[in-house]
């Protein structure tokens, strides 16, 4: 039977914890900084050339989730539109102790909101550090007053899992609201 593939995007400014999160929730991965550590997938070098983290979660025999971590640089903004095609939603991570990261994150977040209309959840990382912003301050700093923000440390597996679960919950809720139109399957040639 053919496998379904769906995508989850993980994005946000530099050093937010994207690579760390993808490592925890993937069954196999090809990480941009870490090509050697992979086996079968290492041959698919294209991902590292474009600077993406790429992980696969094998859900069951007939379903894979592809996790894409986009590089935390504004020059990759243009990729979001194509990445978000066929994606369930996006986990947006930001180092909440760094004003530079928050400023950069604001640009990314606004850009993202304009380009892709898939559900998004924000993970506020580096909470253990001095100067970590309150969540309201962070929301304000990102211009994301209406988004759900979850404090987390991606180095903790349970926290990484929680972010994915929260995103999926968000997907379910947004599906309840709007008409999701997708490809109809019985459009096959003989």
């Amino acid at each position, binding site marked *: 039977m*053919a*496998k*379904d*593939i*769906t*995508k989850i995007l993980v994005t946000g400014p530099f050093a937010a914890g994207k690579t760390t999160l993808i490592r925890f*929730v993937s069954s196999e991965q090809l990480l941009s900084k870490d090509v050697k550590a992979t086996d*079968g*997938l290492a*041959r*698919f*070098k*294209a*991902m590292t*050339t*474009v600077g993406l983290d*790429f992980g*696969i*979660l094998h*859900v*069951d025999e007939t*379903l*894979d*989730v*592809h996790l*894409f971590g986009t590089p935390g640089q504004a020059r990759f903004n*243009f*990729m979001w*539109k*194509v*990445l978000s*095609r*066929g994606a*369930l939603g996006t986990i947006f991570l930001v180092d909440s102790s760094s004003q530079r990261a928050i400023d950069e994150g604001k640009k990314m977040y606004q850009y993202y909101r304009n380009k892709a209309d898939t559900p998004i959840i924000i993970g506020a990382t580096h909470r253990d550090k001095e100067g970590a912003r309150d969540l309201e301050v962070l929301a304000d700093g990102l211009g994301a007053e209406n988004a759900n923000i979850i404090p987390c440390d991606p180095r903790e597996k349970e926290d990484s*899992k929680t972010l*994915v*679960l929260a995103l*999926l*919950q968000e*997907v*379910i809720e947004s*599906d309840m609201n709007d*008409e*999701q*139109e*997708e*490809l*109809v399957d*019985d*459009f*096959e*040639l*003989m």
Partner: protein
Amino acid sequence: MSQDEVNLDKKKPSFKHLGILRQAISKAHTGNIRYETVENEEIKMNMLLGNLLSDSMTVNGLEKFLTFPCMDCKFSVECAEVNSDDVAFDADETLNIQCAGEHSQEAAPPIVLTRVLNGIHWEDEVLIQLKESFSQLPPVEVKMVPMHHYGYNDTLTYLTLYQTSLKNKDFTLAIFFDECPSYISLEQQVKVLVLGYCLDLIKPKASAKKVQKKKSRRLGIVNRILNKIREI
């Protein structure tokens, strides 16, 4: 019906594989399309974010993929045997195309597909099979795009398809074949349909019922992922 009969039936050569390409492009998948020719040859094509790469394996594979019916076809990521030099070059190219695409607010033009399709030639019997296959599709909508950005060299036929679709209320591709002026050859007609079908420019008219069905399927997928994440 026994299991064997089901499998035999599935193994009939057809153009169903074009549907796999269509899904992979429209969902911007990354990985490989693998298919089996009628001669039982297994062929792989590489894809990055819905763009076919231009390594020679992919380009040669695509030519056969578009020209002949196939036995079987699937999408996967397990078996990416790619010459990394090819891919490094290609990923850069893909990036550049993506940048160009950004300005027009469109996805990257599918240049590998159009380049190969421009040069395809079908035997008469295959052409008839494709015609019949397209004719039996349910009513469709056709999307207009600036075809010249795509590097496709038969803009006129695409425009004819588009205009015919506007004029007919329940437009089917059978109507297109009937109404197409005779100075456009059957091969030109079919080619433009292959292009439009693979790029999802020709879409089934969505009936409310089908969209609903799709929604609950999606919910099922999300719930399976939820359960998996909980247990890892």
